[in-house]
């Protein structure tokens, strides 16, 4: 009897210890799991915030390329979105940061240990904003074009540091272990051809293309099995003769929709910058209307008296910019032929040689 009591006691003792131990362990395990989730969320937010700061800094360091080592983040996939209702970037499935103001042209997704950031000023004809191009060491750009073409030569020069390859034939291309491959067709004949054998092994999301046509028109393509699926056709709105920021932005943008969405941010900013220049123009007109100011007559003529004066052309530009912003539609902006008054204003500004220039 005593033995039996002892056995029960010992058994009960152990059960009691097990239950108490399990409860304590569960308690601490619960705290740890909760903290882990919380830390991961916080880490995601910190990463996005730091990247936002880096993008802001890169955005203002015009014409320079910034190589950012993000080796510790190579397991994260960064997503760049620009669509109606949402503009921003962040970690796929995690924290996101809004980008309502800054135009950022990047692939849809980037997963890399090294980011490459490049900022180019967009001038129309005065500087409106810096366009930030985001790429990575494992995003490959394959350029197919005529080696004597001006833009082909310029691309070779300007894209140093990026993962660019210049080929005569797409069949020569080795995709390597890149996260994404973008084909840049300067000849304009991509639509009629299929995807080369060397690139077919890539996933549909891993291969895209942009084809340039005469008249500053680009068409986006996405891999769909063995063929190219045609995407948006976009008219590039720009008056730059060389180092055209809008053209480079088209190359780096994920697709046509993202390109147009980010360019609308540019046109929105253009409205406000134009208003400031309107004020400056007013002051210039007032200054040169005063009798006795050196070169007053010539300057006044160019500024407001001539048939195609700065004043008249500027008003036309201002009207088109305002209409473009109000429409909130890229196609309306491209149809409005904003480039005409912008080009004319650029020529008139150059004529203000002996006067104070508008910009």
């Amino acid at each position, binding site marked *: 009897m005593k033995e039996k009591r002892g056995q029960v006691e010992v058994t009960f003792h152990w059960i009691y210890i097990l239950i108490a131990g399990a409860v304590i362990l569960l308690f601490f395990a619960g705290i740890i799991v909760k903290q882990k989730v919380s830390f991961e969320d916080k880490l995601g937010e910190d990463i996005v915030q730091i990247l936002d700061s880096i993008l802001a800094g890169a955005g203002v360091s015009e014409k320079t390329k910034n190589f950012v080592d993000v080796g510790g983040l190579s397991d994260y996939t960064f997503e760049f979105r620009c669509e109606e209702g949402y503009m921003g970037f962040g970690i796929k499935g995690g924290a996101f940061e809004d980008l309502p103001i800054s135009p950022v042209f990047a692939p849809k997704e980037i997963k890399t240990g090294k980011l490459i950031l490049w900022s180019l000023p967009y001038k129309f004809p005065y500087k409106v904003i*810096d366009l930030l191009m985001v790429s990575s060491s494992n995003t490959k750009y394959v350029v197919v074009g005529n080696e004597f073409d001006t833009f082909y030569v310029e691309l070779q020069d300007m894209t140093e540091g990026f993962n660019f390859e210049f080929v005569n034939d797409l069949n020569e291309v080795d995709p390597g272990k890149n996260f994404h491959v973008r084909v840049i067709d300067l000849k304009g004949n991509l639509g009629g051809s299929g995807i080369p054998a060397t690139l077919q092994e890539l996933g549909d999301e891993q291969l895209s293309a942009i084809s340039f046509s005469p008249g500053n028109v680009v068409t986006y393509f996405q891999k769909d099995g063995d063929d190219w699926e045609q995407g948006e056709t976009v008219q590039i709105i720009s008056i730059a003769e060389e180092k055209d920021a809008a053209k480079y932005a088209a190359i780096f943008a994920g697709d046509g929709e993202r390109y147009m969405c980010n360019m609308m941010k540019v046109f929105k900013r253009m409205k406000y910058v134009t208003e*400031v*220049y309107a*004020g400056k123009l*007013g002051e210039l007109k007032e200054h040169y209307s005063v009798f006795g100011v050196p070169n007053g007559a010539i300057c006044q003529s160019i500024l407001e008296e001539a048939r195609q004066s700065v004043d008249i052309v500027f008003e036309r530009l201002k009207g088109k910019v305002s209409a473009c912003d109000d429409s909130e539609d890229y196609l309306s902006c491209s149809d409005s032929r904003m480039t005409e008054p912008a080009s004319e204003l650029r020529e008139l500004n150059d004529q203000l040689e002996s006067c104070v220039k508008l910009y």
Partner: protein
Amino acid sequence: MKKNRKAQIRMSETIAVLFIFFILVVFSLIFYYKYSEVSFKEEQAELMGLRAMDTTLKTLFLPELICSQGKAEPIDNCFDLMKLRHAAEEGVFNKYLSEYYFDLFPYTKITIEQLYPGEGESWVLYDKEKTKQLDDGLMVPDWKNKESTYFVVSLRDELNPDNEYSFGVLTVEVYG
């Protein structure tokens, strides 16, 4: 009876030990909570400093203010007085605050002052203080701290070629 008593004492001892153990755990949790709170406040202060510097950088390179030459090439650390006057006097930034500039400079005050030569003229480019509305409708400040960043800039007056550049100061105050 004696054995029961012994068992009871042992149970009580175990319970007492566990009780003290849990008290220690609670103390640790309180300590960790307090530490997190302090750490959070420090992080907020650092973020605010970072925000102030970011805002200063953005202001220095604003196309609405920056001087330009040649083919619209910007001149670093220089503000065009004609553009500055128009932007400040017409209140371009405050006029389009809600639809645009608030996203660029949230709760911030941006001031530019001409130190030399000149009469110490100053312009408030943007001013959006963090406020809240009381029950009686009165608007009162709602910020706990303010981080100020200063920068020296040149102010260019192209209409006055003999006295083209003056010495100015950019002040960016960020509300937190």
